[in-house]
């Protein structure tokens, strides 16, 4: 089986789309209210530190994905136990994102359609994407990305007339505590979620720099989110932010240019669905790869379809409603993901550094021994 390679540009674009993919949940008002854009900036700053660890792991083990790295560092048995837990995490969050997409579609348009049909249809699209492989996904996102950016710019420009800068005031009225609390939530979702990209870091082009991939994506995706959040607050105000289910969609609905251009929320819906779809694909792609690695299956494409369909059907009973799902994502997910987003990568990084230094020392000592 040939090795899949994606270019640095494709990896960056894929990661940016992945980061922006959580925007449906993200813009939901937290404790920081009108200061949520400051919380996004704080979260970016915190993520800069963690992303250095991810990039360092990818740099230390070029052409190796996370599952192989775990095997190398922790041995066959313990390594595979960690892979099993990590695969569960990927499956669970992948299914949750499928639920997110299907609930969004159900709420905004197909309210009479059973959610199982929407979930399984979403599963078909994701299964096709995962089965096609990473290269196809990279190329697809490279094509979609400019269209996607144009759509966002159009929405931003058309809504300029409805911005009220006073809605961003008073700045830090309730102090830093709510902002830091929201920053922690935003740090875990979406910035630290980029740990998933370690599952196919081995597919990054050899000449590409993991640091560039991670930092460019983090900064572009992060500041984009900060702008979108600020835009949403300026349009509907902080109090309304927590009232609406999908504020981003609602703000697009408010856009009206004269009497001839209105109801362009469809653009926003397409953007939200396509980004969330990319995120689900990345998660379920990594899950499939993890399962293939666990069972020593050389070609992961072979088991892509049942893995994705399993996640899409399991997404139905995962949460009873969209509100419960969003609440879970806001309150529990940041803590649930600590072992996978922080503890595991840091443990991998420290172990890798120690092992590499030991190896260097032994190779440095060997020629001396040989000379003696």
């Amino acid at each position, binding site marked *: 089986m040939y090795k899949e390679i994606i270019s640095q540009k494709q990896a960056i674009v894929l990661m940016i789309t992945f980061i922006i993919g959580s925007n449906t949940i993200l813009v939901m008002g937290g404790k920081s209210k009108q200061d949520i854009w400051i919380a996004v900036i704080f979260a970016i700053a915190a993520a800069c530190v963690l992303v250095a660890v991810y990039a360092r792991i990818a740099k230390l083990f070029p052409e190796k994905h996370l599952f192989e790295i775990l095997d190398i560092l922790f041995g066959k048995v313990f390594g595979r136990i960690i892979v099993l837990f990590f695969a569960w995490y990927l499956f669970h969050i992948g299914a949750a994102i499928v639920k997110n997409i299907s609930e969004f579609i159900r709420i905004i348009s197909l309210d009479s359609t059973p959610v*199982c049909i929407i979930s*399984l249809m979403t599963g078909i699209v994701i299964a096709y994407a995962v089965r096609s492989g990473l290269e196809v996904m990279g190329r697809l996102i490279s094509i979609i990305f400019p269209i996607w950016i144009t759509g966002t710019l159009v929405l931003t420009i058309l809504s300029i007339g409805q911005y009220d800068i006073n809605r961003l005031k008073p700045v830090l009225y309730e102090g830093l505590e709510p902002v830091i609390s929201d920053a922690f939530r935003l740090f875990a979702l979406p910035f630290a979620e980029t740990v998933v990209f370690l599952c196919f870091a081995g597919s990054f082009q050899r000449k590409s720099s993991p640091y560039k991939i991670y930092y460019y994506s983090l900064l572009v995706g992060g500041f984009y989110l900060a702008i979108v959040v600020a835009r949403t607050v300026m349009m509907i105000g902080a109090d309304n932010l927590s009232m609406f289910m999908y504020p981003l969609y609602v703000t697009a609905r408010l856009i009206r240019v004269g009497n001839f251009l209105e109801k362009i929320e469809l653009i926003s819906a397409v953007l939200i669905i396509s980004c969330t779809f990319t995120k689900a694909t990345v998660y379920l792609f990594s899950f499939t790869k993890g399962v293939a690695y666990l069972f020593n*299956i050389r070609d992961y494409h072979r*088991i892509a*379809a*049942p893995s994705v*369909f*399993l996640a899409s059907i399991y997404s139905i009973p995962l949460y009873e409603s969209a509100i419960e799902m969003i609440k879970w994502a806001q309150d*529990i997910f940041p803590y649930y993901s600590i072992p996978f987003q922080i503890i595991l990568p840091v443990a991998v990084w420290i172990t890798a550094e120690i092992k590499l230094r030991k190896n260097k020392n032994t190779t440095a000592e060997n020629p001396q021994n040989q000379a003696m």
Partner: protein
Amino acid sequence: MVLTSSLVIITALIIIDLIPIYRDQQWKAFFVYCFFLTIFLILAVLMEYNVKIPSPAEPIRSIVSFIFGFEQS
């Protein structure tokens, strides 16, 4: 509804994916594929008959609340 649509998907998957895997004698992939499809079918049958399927969300919430000392909502 869920069972019918799942059966359609399973039939399609068997024709498109599973038969070629069997022909190529990739046994590991074949068994993993069959295992996942079986779970998929079991979940579909349970949902069709309105059996409540346990979600990991609640146990995870309890564990997180226990470790970090939150109040359960």
